[in-house]
């Protein structure tokens, strides 16, 4: 007879950051919210710093403009959050915006009614998202490559449509979507404003947060990001969910294109170059782990606003050469990644 006795390993003493996290946990703080909370604090600090250093930041008009001008970017970041939370990536969103907005403006120019053009624009996004999803899910193509292909395809198609800026007709009802509304007529143009685009962004954020937190689909997204094989073995609908996240990301890219085009009134084939990377940066800054499983939609909103506010502050400062912008973006991203590394335990 063989005598076999087994017992589990005792855990070694964790490093300092793990212990700090333990303390936080004991105080009833969900450590998963820490990176997102930190992003919120950074945003607040940036606002206060901006107010103190340059003035006229913490006021209705500046803040409304920040929101209105970044509405499309928030929508984009929300779409990417779904993909990244599930451990995927979508590089195509910037190019999808280009093809969607160029097509939309041309359709309006060709006399299509605005609602139809908008539906077409969103539909284009959905189509690209679906294509990415099918490549990833049914043909086993890596997300990076599949969405890279869709990025190339979208950019190329946009260029085939037109290589010159396309303008919406000045009287087009499409422009109304981007028109800011004065909610409160403040003194010295310090108005509280909103726009249809901003409303769309808010609706998208709220719906996305509800879907991710309160539906089985949303929880499956998190489960896949945590461990795809576990999710599959638990009997969750992994294939369907993986397809759906790309459809969502593509569709929201189409929505972002509508919001952006309405505000700007023009569209061009080179619109949105590199936006996918900035949007990924926003999602990561907002506390979503690039490997999936951890993060919140609200974090992506904060991340997008952090980057948007940064541009505002750099413009206000005037002393920072514009070429420093990307260096600062890189720096902020770096700081947040380091922060996340400290917070999120590594797998055993």
């Amino acid at each position, binding site marked *: 007879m063989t005598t076999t006795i087994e017992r589990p390993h005792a855990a070694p003493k964790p490093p300092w950051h793990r212990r700090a996290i333990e303390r936080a946990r004991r105080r009833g703080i969900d450590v998963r919210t820490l990176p997102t909370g930190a992003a919120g604090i950074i945003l607040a600090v940036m606002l206060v710093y901006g107010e103190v250093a340059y003035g006229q930041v913490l006021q209705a008009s500046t803040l409304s403009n920040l929101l209105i001008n970044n509405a499309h970017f928030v929508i984009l970041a929300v779409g990417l959050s779904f993909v990244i939370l599930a451990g995927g990536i979508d590089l195509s969103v910037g190019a999808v915006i280009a093809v969607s907005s160029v097509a939309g403006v041309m359709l309006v120019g060709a006399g299509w009614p605005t609602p139809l053009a908008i539906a077409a624009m969103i539909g284009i996004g959905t189509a690209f998202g679906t294509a990415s999803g099918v*490549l990833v899910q049914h*043909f086993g193509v890596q997300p990076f*490559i599949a969405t890279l292909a869709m*990025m190339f395809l979208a950019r190329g198609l946009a*260029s085939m449509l037109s290589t010159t800026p396309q303008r919406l007709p000045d009287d087009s009802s499409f422009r109304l979507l981007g028109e800011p509304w004065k909610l409160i007529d403040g003194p010295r143009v310090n108005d509280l404003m909103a726009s249809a685009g901003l409303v769309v962004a808010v609706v998208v954020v709220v719906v996305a947060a509800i879907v991710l937190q309160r539906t089985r689909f949303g929880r499956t997204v998190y489960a896949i990001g945590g461990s795809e094989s576990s999710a599959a073995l638990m009997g969750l609908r992994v294939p369907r969910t993986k397809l759906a996240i790309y459809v969502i990301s593509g569709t929201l890219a189409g929505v972002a294109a509508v919001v952006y085009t309405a505000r700007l009134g023009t569209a061009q084939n080179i619109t949105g170059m590199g936006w996918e990377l900035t949007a990924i940066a926003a999602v990561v800054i907002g506390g979503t782990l690039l490997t999936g499983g951890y993060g919140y939609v609200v974090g992506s909103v904060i991340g997008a606003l952090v980057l948007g506010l940064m541009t505002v502050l750099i413009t206000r400062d005037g002393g920072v*050469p*514009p070429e420093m912008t*990307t260096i600062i973006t890189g720096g902020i*991203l770096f700081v947040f990644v380091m922060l996340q590394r400290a917070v999120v335990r590594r797998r055993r």
Partner: protein
Amino acid sequence: MTATTTRERLGALASTPLVWGLVAIVVLLAINSLRDPGYLGVELAASGRLTGNPIDILRTAAPLLMIALGMTLVVATGGIDLSVGSAMVIGGAVSMEMLQAGDGSVGSAMAALGVALLITAVLGAINGVLVAFVGLQPFITTLVTMLAGRGLAKVITEGQNTSASNEAFRWIANGTVLGAPVVFLIALAILVVVVVLVRTTALGMLIESIGIDPKASRMAGVDRRSLLVAVYVISGVLGGVAGVFATGSVMTVDVSNTGLLLELDAILAVVVGGTALTGGRFSLAGAAIGALLIATLDKTVVFLGVSSAATPAFKAVVIVALCLLQSATIRERLSRVRLRAPRREVTA
């Protein structure tokens, strides 16, 4: 020993992505030849240099080939280097600034090249250290250096597109030896050097080893960290070389566009060449074929009279076609692998 039948060998050949890349090149050239039977003609011009479409293709492929080689090694470790495009623009910016300040001699050309490579090596080393020692994800790390790197190039040239003149430099980028473009010969030489470097030493096997299983490699005594730093430095330096030649052909660095998104082309070349983005086994020859394919595609699109801005759409078609081709074989293999998985039990 097992005897391999011809049929098995052919089958193995057909499942090699490299072969599909070659086939795609031949198909593209055939299409062009159909349109213009003299397409493949090469003429000896009065100046003693060869001219013709194939020569053009080789010249276009050269910088991409260089960065694709570095990218292959990075990808083989399971990483990715998004910063090579920025390494290119830094290499270009540094060399142009040096040449502008220099006296136009061969010596100053060498100095410019040397400093450019040194700085891009440092950029690569930063990537390597962050990935290997700090433990950040390659995607995020190189996204940071990609953003910061282009910013740095703009800072170096103070946001200007710097031009310079230096005959030695111009010769390297535009000259010919025995009719062949110098820059392609250099790219070929680099290919040979890198192949020799990784295959006559154990570098290749050790890179594959850490790409497949970092933990087991460590237990086998493999020094993962120095290998990682090495591949990112190689990738950075090759990016710098590519940048110097890409700017050398026009003797101007365009800080906003030099090397922009070229990292994606390089990744595409690597994947077309049969190296999986998940790391492990890699093929440098495959990456070279991939780079040639992309260059051929670029030229073909222009030749067929489509706007060059639309090129990406054709790249997308190639990616999707190759992915589906490989996917059919991959899926067949996958189903075999999936079935084979329990073999360790069944043949134990």
